[in-house]
Every structure is written in structure tokens, then in C-alpha cells.
């Protein structure tokens, strides 16, 4: 190993244990790694719970009006100023109480889901595409291409994630979902690129790649049909865990006042508003916090379960 700091051991912690996962089905077994993992996952309670939570969250994000009749922007200062939650009135606007502008906290929690899910998923998709492509090229071609790419990755890695996002976002006057997504993606693709590079290096010497090459397959065919499917497993796992991190990052930025802000709805900015009344009306702070933490938890649990299923060392 010419340079130990490129191997991915310096990326985030749970990632490190994954990076060396060997992809590829063991000989003599007809089932592929993926179908093996799938039959494993179907019987895992943590995967099923996380999957159900994520499914519900996606439905909420897509159709918030199915879950509440109240509008998240309708303010009733006279009647509902900081009214406490009525926890027995399920799914009604007063379920989680009202905030300092007389808006239903329940409705805001429901409508705030979309920002988190959309930003988390789009950042992950962009990062997966960009990071995989760059990592694959660096890992497969090696030599000077690898050296140049690795230096670029190192440079981006030199900027701590949230600090970098702050510098980007502070110069925008209005920050929509798109700007935040791009800011997080610009800083986030390097983790995936590093893991993909390591994974491709361990796969490219495999017999089936040599066989494909000796049969005269072109570079892109080898990359897309043979290398990519077998190098994908650790990358998918890292991306799933990272998704939770991106949701957390968006919320943190919105909380700090440089992410989404009114009139856009986000749990982070609602928590920021709620913090001022923490001693008189804890409920304004607590319900978006629970939703946010639960969402991140669901994606992390999913990532953990998938990692265990894809890691042949634990079999």
C-alpha cells in the first residue's frame, strides 16, 4: 500500500469495518451475494422495523395532506398560542399542541418530513453516482489517474463536512432545497469515492475480471458488467449510513439558521424556533426532535442491518 491514508480507514467509523467486505458469491453456492443477503434480511426484525418506518416516512413526505387536515401555515394567535398537546386526540391538529404563532405542531411535523427525506435521498443519489464513478476510475486505472484523483479527494477530505457546508451556504441569501442538496453533495462525494476505489482495487484482480478481459471485453463493459456489481456492496452500505448523516446535517444547518427557513418547512428550523420557549412550552421543541431522531435512526438501523447481511465475515 503506497499511501495508507487513501484506503478508507480514515473515513467515518462504521464505514471502516465495511470497506474490506469481499464481494462475490462463494464458489459452489448457486445464490448470489444479493439474494443471500435478501433472504437474511427478510428474517431480521431490525430491518423490518426500519423498513416499515422508512416506508411510512416516504408516504408522509409524498402525501402530507393524507395525515392531517390542518394547514401547517395557518396561525391562530388568539386561540391557540402555545396551547399544550392533547395526547389522546390522535391525528387531530391539536395532538402535539400549538407553537408560539398558533400553528399546529402536528401539521408542521408532518409537512416538515418532505424537506428531510428529499434532501437526504437526493444528496445520497448524487453522491453515489459521482463518488462511484470517480472511485471506480481511480481504482481501476491506477497509476497517475489514481494519484491525481486521490489528491483531489484528500483536498476535499481536508474540509470538515459541516464547516464546509456553512461556508458555502452563508454566502446565499435564499437557500432552497436545491442549494442545500448541492452544498452537501459537493462535500460528501469523497467518502463514497474512497470506499469505491478500495473496493474496485480488491475486485479488479479477480479471475472473472481477467477472464472477461481475455475474452476481449472492452474496458467499459468490464467496468459496468463485472467490476461494478461486485464492488458495489460496501458502497451501498456506506451510502445508507451516510443518508442518515445527510438528514442530520440538513437539520443542523437549518437549526443554525443557514439551511431552510420560513416559509420552507424543516424540522431543524422548527427546533430552532422552539428553543426560545423551552421552559414554557417544551412540546414545540420535543415533537420535531423526536421525528428527526426517529428518521435518522430508521436509516441507520437499515444501514446496520444491510451491512451485517452483506458482510460474509459474519456468516
Amino acid at each position, binding site marked *: 500500500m503506497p*499511501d*495508507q*491514508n487513501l484506503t478508507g*480507514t*480514515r*473515513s*467515518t*467509523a*462504521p464505514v*471502516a*469495518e465495511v470497506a474490506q467486505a469481499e464481494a462475490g458469491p462463494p464458489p459452489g453456492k448457486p445464490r448470489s451475494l444479493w439474494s443471500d443477503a435478501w433472504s437474511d434480511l427478510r428474517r431480521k426484525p431490525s430491518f423490518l422495523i426500519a423498513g416499515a418506518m422508512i416506508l411510512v416516512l416516504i408516504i408522509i413526505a409524498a402525501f402530507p395532506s393524507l395525515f392531517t387536515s390542518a394547514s401547517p401555515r395557518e396561525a391562530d394567535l388568539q386561540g391557540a398560542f402555545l396551547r399544550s398537546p392533547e395526547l389522546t386526540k390522535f391525528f387531530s391538529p391539536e395532538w402535539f399542541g400549538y407553537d408560539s404563532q398558533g400553528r399546529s405542531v402536528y401539521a408542521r411535523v408532518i409537512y416538515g418530513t418532505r424537506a428531510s427525506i428529499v434532501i437526504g435521498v437526493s444528496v445520497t443519489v448524487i453522491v453515489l453516482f459521482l463518488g462511484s464513478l470517480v472511485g471506480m476510475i481511480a481504482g481501476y486505472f491506477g497509476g497517475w489517474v489514481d494519484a491525481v484523483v486521490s*489528491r*483531489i479527494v*484528500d*483536498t*476535499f477530505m*481536508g*474540509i*470538515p*463536512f*459541516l*464547516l*464546509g457546508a*456553512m*461556508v*458555502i451556504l*452563508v*454566502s*446565499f*441569501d435564499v437557500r432552497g432545497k436545491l442549494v442545500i442538496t448541492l452544498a452537501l453533495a459537493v462535500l460528501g462525494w469523497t467518502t463514497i469515492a474512497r470506499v469505491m476505489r478500495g473496493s474496485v482495487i480488491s475486485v479488479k484482480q479477480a479471475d472473472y475480471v481477467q477472464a472477461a478481459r481475455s475474452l476481449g471485453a472492452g474496458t467499459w463493459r468490464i467496468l459496468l458488467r463485472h467490476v461494478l456489481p461486485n464492488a458495489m456492496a460496501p458502497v451501498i452500505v456506506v451510502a445508507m449510513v451516510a443518508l*442518515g448523516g445527510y438528514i*442530520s446535517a440538513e*437539520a*443542523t444547518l437549518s*437549526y*443554525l*439558521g*443557514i439551511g431552510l427557513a420560513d416559509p420552507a418547512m424543516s424540522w431543524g428550523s422548527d*427546533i430552532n424556533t422552539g*428553543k426560545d420557549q*423551552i*421552559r414554557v412550552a*417544551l412540546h414545540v*421543541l420535543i415533537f420535531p*426532535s423526536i421525528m*428527526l*431522531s*426517529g428518521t*435518522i*435512526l430508521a436509516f*441507520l*438501523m437499515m444501514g*446496520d442491518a444491510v451491512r451485517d447481511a452483506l458482510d460474509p465475515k459474519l456468516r
Partner: protein
Amino acid sequence: MGRYVVRRLLQMIPVFIGATLLVFLMMYALPGDPVRALYGERSVDEAQIAAIKAELGLDLPLMQQYWNYLLGVFQGDFGTQIASRRPVMDVITQALPATIRLTVLAFLITVVLGVGMGLVAGLRRGGKTDRAILFVTLIFISVPVFVIGYAYQNFFANTLGWTTPTVRDPEAWTQLILPAMVLASLSLAYVARLTRTSIAENARADYMRTAKAKGLSRPRAVTVHLMRNSLIPVVTFLGVDIGNLMAGAIVTEGIFNVQGIGSAVYRALSFREGATVVGIVTFMIVVYLVVTLLVDLLYAVLDPRIRYA
């Protein structure tokens, strides 16, 4: 070893130049004019804006500005606050002691609790304690720092009354314990999980069997053989984690009103003082790069198996 140090130092140069250039471009190539922002909606004299820009060197070509900025960073000059014309370095030196105290405390909590929990869990892999620790760390990872911050503040300070909800005197270590626990929570969870995996993997290694066979007591085998071999990835992580701690400090210091670098950034963010944010963030990035370099060097000392040609 000597050659490795030199090589590592040389590798730092492009990374340093690249990272500062990125930060610089993010600040100046993106929309928004910091001088004009100073005036908000009021109408301003173009000549006045030009004068302020000339004074701060903002009218020079972009690369010239970057060169000046880089020269400044090497001399400990991280720019000037546009509104007050106060050097950002002043703000940093004034706020640094509180942040160092907070970070050191958080770092200690991370190392002691994180490695401790990871060791216990790793040695009893699959047991009840292990599962409990895994669950607790999963919670710590999924609950964002600012939520943990308000939860702790509300519970330990407002409900139990064990400590003050905000830090009144940053010199007092006892008041810093609560914010340090909040700041440490995320890293603590990662360190515990990383240690657990590493310990559990190495506990089955041949050298552990040999240690047992030659009659070494269990505590000695664990501390001298197992720990030393298992902590290498943890040390690496701790170095990288300084970056997370600094970002976390912005949130934590804001919640607990610690007068440190983090709350300086927090305030600058709410007043939209771009130059201050970029100055302090650049400073943090420099600290981060130096720490990762030191950790890489330490890595070579810790693990004699790694030979850097």
C-alpha cells in the same frame, strides 16, 4: 520513519493549498456581496462601497486576493470583520481558551467512556451488555447534537438542578461538564462501536491464544496485547474526529452560551458576518489538517508493522 515524515509533510502542501482555495472560492465566487450586505436594503453610494472594497482589498483580481489571503493565513491573519474592522484573529485568540477547555474535556470523555464501553462490549460480544451498549450508541448517533443538548440542558439543569443551564464562567470546569458531555456524545458512540468491532475481531487472534497458553493473566493479556493492537483504528478515528468536534462546538457553545470560538461562529452566522465565518472556519481547517498530520505520524509510532518506505 524520517522519510515518511518528510513525505507526509510534502503531501500536506497540496492538500492545504487545495482546501484553503476551495474555502476561498466558496466564499468569493458564490453570489452575495459582503460589503453591500452590510447596508441591507438601504440605498448606498457606489463610491463608498468601492472605497470599503479597496480598503479591504476586495477589488483586486480573484487570484491576487487568494494569494493575499494565503499569505495572511501563514502569518496568522484570518481576515477582518467587515462591519467592525476588527481582525478575526483577535476574535479567535479571545475565544480560544474556552473552546480548548471544552474540547479537551469532551475529548477525555470520548476516550475514557468510548474505549471503556467498546472494550466491555467487544469482550462480551453477543451478550446482553453488548446489545445494550450497541443500542445506546445507536441512539447517540441518531439523535442530532442540538437535540441532545436541549434534552440534557432541560433534564440535568432545569429539572434536576445539578448544574447551571448555561455556562456563566468558562473558567469553571464543573460548569463545562454538561456541554462537554453533549459535545462528546456522537464521537463517544463512534469510538465505542469502533473499539468493539476491533476488540471482538482481535480477541480471537492467535496471539491472544498464545498469551493464554503461556500463562499470562487475562487482564494483562487484554491490556498489553489486545488493547494495543485494537486501538490503532480508534486513534486514527480520534484524529479525524477533531473536525466533528469543532463543528459540534458551534452548536454546543451556542446552546450553553460558552464564550468560545463556536459561539463566535454561531453569532457570526446569525448576523450573516460572512468574513468572520470564513476566517474562523479557515482557522479550524488549519487546526484540523495539523491534527490529522500528527495522528498519521503517531500511527507510524504505534504500529511498527507499518513500514513507510
